[in-house]
């Protein structure tokens, strides 16, 4: 459709109408732009001018409020409250503005209004993890633990990334692992493992064990590696019996072979049938420079595989692995047995086994014979007696650095059928 512009009147009215329309558009557009620049300037005076320029903009008042509340030099929560209230008048549906208001009320000690504001934020954003988290922490500070834990649990269920800090906060507020398990942790292995990790890190062994028992009772699968911190803590705390009970449970949950070793040996997988766990009560190998590890066929009438270590002659290697922490009874005798074969092991300092108490190094320390040169499969046997406070033995393949010039280690060693069994045999070979 076309409309002709008839007459001078219409042609004069058109620019006037356009100017009026333009003014209606340009004025507010310019104000919003200028206000935006001022509000984001980071200077209080400009932010105040910006907020006044567009009075209906809740974000401007909220920014101003946070600036005043968290000003390092002159924090003023009362002024902040006034600004937050203006923000809420403009946008009463913003959970964030309500939470900011609650925080300011709490700063001024007005806990009743703070609680009201948190409830408003929950109404505004019922599914928010952040709202539940902030409210839960508010309740923790007010020592309303049951409701606080419920809110924190809600927050974790909605946002799993809050779990580590939630565990820390809940533990520090109560120190009660049953509260942690019953009220805060979601009932899944991942949450329990993270809590286990935390308790191990702060050396709360009993609490970690209680949590472990609940985890094992869950009957759900979980990976082995996340349990290592827990086992390190059991080793540190000399909880040999607990570690011995927990290790097969961990293996079973990870879907790994967990049958007790044959012949009552206390060493797990002495026949090297499975790959190294590299933690817990399994074999560990830290891949030192100058040594390579692999597996070979076992000697006749022996276990599944033999361990092979190749030394490339590049370093005067200080070797302390592969190794395994073995839970043992205190004040008891044990017989250690292994098969070893060497091929052209160089230097004067060869390969041997070391058995010691990792928590009491001076006790029950034992070194087997030094293997250098070439030897066929040879039995290595030793008896060791644990002291009254020994609950773990560290069994490891060992070499101390040579003191001579010709000290670079080369050659190959094979190890098979490693076992440590309780023995009534007396005596022990002590390190000279």
């Amino acid at each position, binding site marked *: *459709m076309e409309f002709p512009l008839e007459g001078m009147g219409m042609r004069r009215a058109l620019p006037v109408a356009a100017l009026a329309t333009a003014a209606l558009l340009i004025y507010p557009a310019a104000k919003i732009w200028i206000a935006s620049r001022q509000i984001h300037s980071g200077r209080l005076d400009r932010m105040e001018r910006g907020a006044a320029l567009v009075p209906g903009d809740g974000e401007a008042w909220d920014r101003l409020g946070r600036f005043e509340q968290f000003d390092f030099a002159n924090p003023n929560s009362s002024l902040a409250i006034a600004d937050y209230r203006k923000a809420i008048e403009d946008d009463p*549906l913003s959970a964030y503005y309500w939470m900011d208001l609650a925080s300011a009320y709490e700063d001024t000690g007005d806990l009743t209004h703070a609680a009201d504001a948190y409830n408003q934020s929950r109404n505004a954003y019922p599914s928010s993890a952040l709202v539940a988290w902030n409210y839960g922490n508010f309740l923790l500070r007010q020592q309303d633990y049951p409701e606080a834990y419920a809110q924190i649990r809600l927050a974790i269920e909605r946002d799993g990334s809050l779990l580590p800090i939630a565990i820390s906060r809940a533990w520090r507020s109560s120190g009660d692992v049953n509260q942690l398990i019953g009220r805060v942790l979601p009932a899944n292995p991942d949450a329990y493992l993270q809590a286990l990790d935390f308790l191990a890190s702060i050396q709360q062994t009993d609490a970690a064990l209680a949590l472990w028992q609940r985890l094992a009772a869950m009957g759900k699968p979980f990976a082995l590696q996340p349990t290592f911190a827990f086992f390190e803590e059991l080793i540190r705390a000399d909880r040999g019996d607990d570690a011995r009970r927990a290790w097969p449970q961990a293996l079973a949950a990870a879907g790994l072979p967990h049958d007790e070793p044959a012949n009552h040996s206390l060493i797990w997988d002495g026949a090297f049938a499975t790959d190294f766990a590299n933690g817990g009560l399994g074999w560990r190998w830290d891949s030192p420079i100058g040594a390579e590890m692999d597996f070979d066929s076992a000697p006749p009438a022996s276990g599944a595989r033999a361990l092979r270590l190749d030394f490339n002659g590049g370093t005067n290697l200080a070797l302390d692995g592969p190794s395994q922490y073995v839970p043992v009874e205190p004040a008891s005798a044990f017989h250690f047995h292994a098969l070893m074969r060497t091929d052209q092991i160089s230097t004067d300092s060869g390969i041997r086994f070391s058995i010691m108490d990792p928590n009491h190094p001076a006790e029950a320390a034992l070194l087997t014979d030094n293997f250098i040169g070439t030897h066929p499969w040879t039995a290595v046997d030793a008896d060791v007696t644990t002291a009254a406070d020994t609950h773990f033995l560290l069994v490891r393949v060992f070499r101390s650095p040579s003191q001579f010039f010709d000290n670079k280690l080369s050659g190959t060693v094979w190890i098979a059928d490693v076992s440590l069994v309780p023995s009534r045999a007396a005596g022990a070979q002590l390190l000279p």
Partner: protein
Amino acid sequence: MRLVRIGLCLLLAFSVLAFGAVETWSVSLLEIGAALLLVAWAFIVSRDSGAKIQWSALNAPLLGFLAIGLLQLLLHRTAYPFLTRQELLRLAAYFIVFFLTAQAFRSRADLWALAWFLVVLCFAVSLLAIIQHFTSNGRIYWFQEVASGADVFGPFVNRNHFAGFLELTLPVGLALLAFRGVRRDLFPLVALLTIVPVSALVLSGSRAGIMSFVFAMAVLALLVRSRQELRGPRMAAVVLVALAALALIAWVGVSGIVERFSPQNSVGISLSRRASMFRGAAHIFLDHPVIGSGLGTTVSVYPRYETEYDGRVVDHVHDDYIEALAETGLLGGLCGLAFLWRLYRHARENFQAEQSHFSRALHAGAIAALSALLLHSFADFNLHIPSNALLFLVMAYLATSAPLPSEFAAQRRRQPAGEHVSVVR
């Protein structure tokens, strides 16, 4: 009027290059620019005694949206008046640009210039996007940092909005090829100017964008098929362009693009999240069925209706239709339906009318472009990106603009009876 035409083109280009005009400063400049162009137009027209104002059939539904926003403010029926006022300013600017486009681009020469402007803009932005994709470190223009989590492509902070831009501009060039809207000696140039954007679209990896573009090509093919006649349009040129573009992409490397279509790809919004946003917006509509929650208020209202929390702020629900219903209710829905009805009715009539190849190409390109973006709007919020909203309205104007007679028919009308007319395309 040339001043207004140039001003409109500059405004469109600015809105695209200023990150889609999604930031406060660029939106404000857009609004101010539109207002100034309106004043310029008014003064130009007031000095022309023979001037006529073009009144598009789409003006009424567009003004209807504005009226709904004003009503929401006057009756205090908006959840957040400030946001509604901001949205009204944007809509007013869009309407002004749409209105001025209808006034300024009427003759063949004007539309020819506009078509070439769109084709060149499409090509230039695509070339920039491709080079930036391979050489930048995630920044726009190699220096502009964007918020973490942004999915930059070209000057847009989101690859899907870049795709929306291409959906709106690329079909113009392809339609010029298919409907012989340019001289034969210009075919290679137009083909080159369209190969690069097709490659850029595929490279962007926007799944909805690529599917919408395929839909646009299907629409174009249908339109071509409806005009099967001697010396009629052919899709062969378009198919060749598409194949050349795919060859270019294959040479560059498609692994990243193929990954985007993998079911295991976890980048972007998941289906369940989209479904939950749709449900939330639907509930907003059901709670505000007549007049909606308020223009521009989704970001404020939605949290109360959210069921699947992921820590991200939802400012748009990735479905322009349900969002419009939520914000403007049944009244807005009726305006939207009226807009679409009139758009396609007039577009169809104007496409089928007797006209020059160029004019038909322009109509076809616009129809394909609009169809692509309207399909994409089921899965994204391109119509809330100011640059794409403006281009959408420009395409809407082109689709519904009066068909231009062929040069031959125009010359015959101009020649006195009895004189010969040389045949000129």
